[in-house]
C-alpha cells in the first residue's frame, strides 16, 4: 500500500481510448521544462511511477460519445501546433445530441452557461497559426494551443450541453442506443475509481479538469458513500458559474460550500483567459468555508489562444509545485 494514490477525472468532449488519454495526461505532467518561455526552467516533470504514486483514470467520455475509438494515432506530442478547424470539429470533439430542456430553469441554464462562458475574453489566434496542420483526432484537444474563434464557441456550446445532461441527471441515449442517466452514471464511475485507488494508496488526491471538476465536487458534496479525499485539484473549472453552483448546492443549503466532511484541501487552478473558468475563476469567495477549510485559488497563466488545455495546465510551475507536495514528492 502506497501513501498516496491519484484519481484523474477528464473534461469535456470526445476523448481517445482511456489508456491513450491517460498516457497523454501523464506525458503532460512528466515532461521536463515545457514551454520555457512561459515557465522558466527549472520546471521538472512529475512522473507518478517514479514517485511511487499509483494513478487511476476515471473515464466517462464514452457515456456521450460511445467507444468507437480511433485506432490509428499520430504523434500528438509533436503536433502541438495542430489547429482544430470547424470543418472537422465533430471528428475531434465528438457529436452530441442536442438537449431538449424540460422547463424554464433548464432552458435558462443552457442559455446562461453558454452566454457567460462564451462572453469571456480569450486571446486571439494569430493568423500565422491558422495554417498549422489540421487536428483530426480526439486526443489533440488535450494538447491544443490554437483554436479559431468559431471552434472556441462550438466547444463552449458543447460544454453547456454536457453540463446540462450531468447536472439535471438527464437520460442520454447514445447513437448505438445505449442509455445512461448521466449524473448517476458519472457519480458511480468516479466512486468506483476512488475505491480502486484506495486499494493502492492510503490517501486520495483528485486531479480534475473542466467538466470533471463538477463531477468531483458533486460526489464529494452530495454522495454519502464518498470516501475521504486528501486533496482536490480543480483545473479550468466551471464551478464558479452561478447556474452550475445552483445545481450542486447541498440539500438544505442556500449556497455552495466547502465539502469539509470528505475533503481536506481544495486547490483551484485557473488561467483568467480560460473561457471555461473565466466567468468566475475564484472559488474562495463562492464556496463557504467550513471547519476552517476554504478553497485555495491559484492563478496559472499558460499559453496559446485556447487556455483550457489540460496538458498546458499540467506544465505550470504553480500547479506542479502544489501537486508534488500533495503527493509527498520533492519539487523541483
Amino acid at each position, binding site marked *: 500500500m502506497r*501513501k498516496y494514490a491519484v484519481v484523474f477525472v477528464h473534461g469535456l468532449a470526445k476523448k481517445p481510448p482511456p489508456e491513450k488519454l491517460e498516457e497523454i495526461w501523464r506525458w503532460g505532467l512528466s515532461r*521536463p521544462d515545457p514551454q520555457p518561455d512561459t515557465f522558466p526552467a527549472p520546471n*521538472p516533470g512529475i*512522473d507518478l*511511477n517514479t*514517485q*511511487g504514486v*499509483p494513478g487511476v483514470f476515471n473515464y466517462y467520455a464514452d457515456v456521450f460519445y460511445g467507444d468507437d475509438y480511433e485506432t490509428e494515432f499520430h504523434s500528438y506530442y509533436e503536433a502541438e501546433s495542430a489547429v482544430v478547424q470547424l470543418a472537422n470539429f465533430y471528428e475531434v470533439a465528438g457529436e452530441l445530441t442536442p438537449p431538449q430542456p424540460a422547463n424554464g430553469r433548464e432552458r435558462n441554464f443552457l442559455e446562461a452557461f453558454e452566454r457567460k462562458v462564451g462572453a469571456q475574453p480569450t486571446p486571439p489566434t494569430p493568423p500565422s497559426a491558422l495554417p498549422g496542420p489540421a487536428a483530426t483526432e480526439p486526443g489533440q484537444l488535450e494538447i491544443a494551443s490554437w483554436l479559431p474563434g468559431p471552434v472556441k464557441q462550438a466547444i463552449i456550446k458543447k460544454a453547456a450541453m454536457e453540463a446540462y445532461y450531468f447536472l439535471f441527471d438527464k437520460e442520454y441515449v447514445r447513437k448505438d442506443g445505449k442509455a445512461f442517466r448521466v449524473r448517476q452514471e458519472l457519480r458511480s464511475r468516479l466512486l468506483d475509481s476512488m475505491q480502486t485507488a484506495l486499494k493502492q494508496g492510503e490517501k486520495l488526491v483528485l486531479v480534475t479538469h473542466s467538466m470533471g471538476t463538477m463531477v468531483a465536487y458533486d460526489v464529494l458534496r452530495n454522495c454519502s458513500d464518498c470516501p475521504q479525499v486528501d486533496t482536490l485539484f480543480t483545473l479550468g473549472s466551471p464551478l464558479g458559474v452561478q447556474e452550475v453552483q445552483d445545481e450542486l448546492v447541498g440539500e438544505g443549503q442556500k449556497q455552495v460550500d466547502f465539502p469539509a466532511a470528505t475533503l481536506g484541501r481544495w486547490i483551484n487552478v485557473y488561467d483568467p483567459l480560460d473561457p471555461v473558468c473565466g466567468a468566475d475563476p475564484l472559488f474562495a469567495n463562492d464556496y463557504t468555508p467550513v471547519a476552517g477549510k476554504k478553497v485555495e485559488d491559484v492563478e496559472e497563466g499558460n499559453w496559446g489562444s485556447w487556455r483550457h488545455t489540460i496538458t498546458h495546465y499540467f506544465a505550470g510551475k504553480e500547479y506542479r509545485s502544489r501537486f508534488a507536495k500533495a503527493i509527498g514528492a520533492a519539487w523541483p
Partner: protein
Amino acid sequence: MKSHSSHDIAAGLKEGRYDDPPPHLLAQAVQLIADELAPAGAGVGKEGIRRAMDVLRCHRHFHHMHLLGAAWRDTQGCDPVIQRLLAQATVELGAFDKADELLDEAEAASGASNDLEFQAQSPDCHALRGRIRKQKFVLCGDVNLLQEAAACYQKLYASRPSFFPGVNILAVRTRLQGYGLDQAGEPLATLARSVMKQAIEATRSNPGDPWALAAASEACLALDQLEPEVEWCDKAELWLHRFLGHKGTGPFEVESYFRQVRELWQGDSLYTAHCAGRLAAVLERHVMNTQRKWSADAKQMQRVSRASTDELEKNFSGEKSFTVADVRKMLDLSPNVGCITDVSGVRMGTGFLMPGVVFGKPFELVFITNAHVIGKAALPWQQARVTFEIESVGAGNPVPHEVQEVLFTSEPGKLGHVPDAPGKLDVTVCVLRSLPKGLSGLPIAGNIPLPSPRTKAFVVGHPLAGPLQFSLQDSVLLDVCPKERLVHYRTPTDPGSSGSPVFNDRWEVLALHHAGSQACPRLNGQGEYQANEGITLQAIQRAMGVGA
C-alpha cells in the same frame, strides 16, 4: 544441460567448463574450490586450478580468478601458470603494484628452480609488466613508465614477434613521440606496416581470433598520425567494424581496444575530427547499443561535463530515455561514487556517499556499500580503502580513504528471499576518516517507484575491470516486494557493481545494488526470471530506526 548445484559448477570449472551459472552459485562454487585448497596437501591439483582460472578469465570473473589464485599461492606456493593468471587478475582488479610483486615472485621462483614452465610463461609476464606500466602511466602521467612499458613489450616482441606486442610497442612509442621522447627502434611507420602485415596474416591463419582485426585497426590509426596525407582513418574504421562484427568479439575484447584508443591514443568521442576520436565514437555507440552501458574514465567525464549541449546531444543521440540534463546531472553526481579496494589496491566493489542525516547520523557524509563487500564475512573494514576516481585523477594517483567506523551493518540474505530474511539487508554504512573535497553526497528518493515498463532504474558503478560505468538503456524497474524492502530491475551490471547506487530517473538513489541472477526468484508470485536486485534505502533507514 546446465549444472545447478555449486558442487557441479565447481567440478565443471576444474575441467574448464563454464555453463553460465547464476552468480551466487558461481561464487559458492569458487569458494568451494578455494576451501578445498585450505588443508595442506589436500584437495585440487594445479591443472584443475589452472583450468578454472583460465575459464574464469575468459568470462571476466577476475574477482573469482583472484580468489582461486590467491588461495593456491597462500597454501601451495608459486606455480608458474597460476601465478601469471593471478597477476593478470590482480592487474584487471586495478592493483598494479601488487601484480608487479607477484610477477617478481614468479621470476625469483623461476631463477631458483630452473623449471621450464616458468620460462614458458616468461613472454606473457613481459606483456603483463608492459600493461602494468601502461596503466600506471595513464593514472599518473609519468612518461618513464611509458618508456618501461615499451621495453617490456619489446622483450616479448624479441622472443615472440607478433602483432600483439608489436601493436603495443607502436602505441606506446607513438605516444612517447608525442612527448618528443621516442628514441629506439625501427621507424614507427615501418613498425606500423609490419604490425599491419602480421595482423592481416593472422586474420587468415587464425580467423577465429578477433584480436588481429583490432591490431590492424590500431596500426592504421598509427599510420594516420604518421602519414596524415594518406586517408588511413577510413581503413582504421573499416578494420574496427570488422573487429566489432567478429563473432569472437565480446565485451572484454571491445573494452580492451576501447581503453587503448581512449587512454593511449587519447581518442575522445566528442572530438571526431581526429581519427582516434572517430574510432572512440564508433566504439562508444557500439557499447551503448550492445551492452546498454556507457563507460567513462574520470578524464573523459571531466571533458564531457564541460562539453556544450550540442556536443552532448550528438554524443548521446539515440538515447531516447536520456536528456542532456540527465547527462549533466549524472556527471555532477558521479564523484560521490567510490571504488572499494583492499590494502593492496585490489578492487572489491562499489559504494557511495550520502548525507549522514539520511540515516540519522551526525556526520556530514557516510559511505554505503554491501556487507558482502565490506563486512565480517568479506573485507574487514580495517582493511578497506575507498578511492574516488575524479579525486584520484585530479591528484595524479589513487587517493585511498580509510574507514573510521562502521555505523551499521546487516548481513546478506539469499537473492529474492523476502519473507524469510527481513533483517538481512546486505549493507554496511560507515564513516570514512577523510573525504574528497566539495562533495555533498547523493540525494535519496522520497518514494519507491512503481514498477512499469517505463519506470527507470539506473545503476552507476565500478565494474572490476574498468572505469565508472553507467547503465543507460534497458534499465527498467521490474518489481518491488510488498514490504518495499527489495527491488528488481533489468539493468545491465557487471561484477564489481555490488554496492552501486540504483537511481530513479530524477537521479535520486532508491536502492543499494547487491546482486543479480539469470534465475532470480520473483518478488511477487512464483517462478524465476533474469533480474538484478537492490535493497531499498527506505528499508535500510527503517532498520537504522530512521524514516517512515
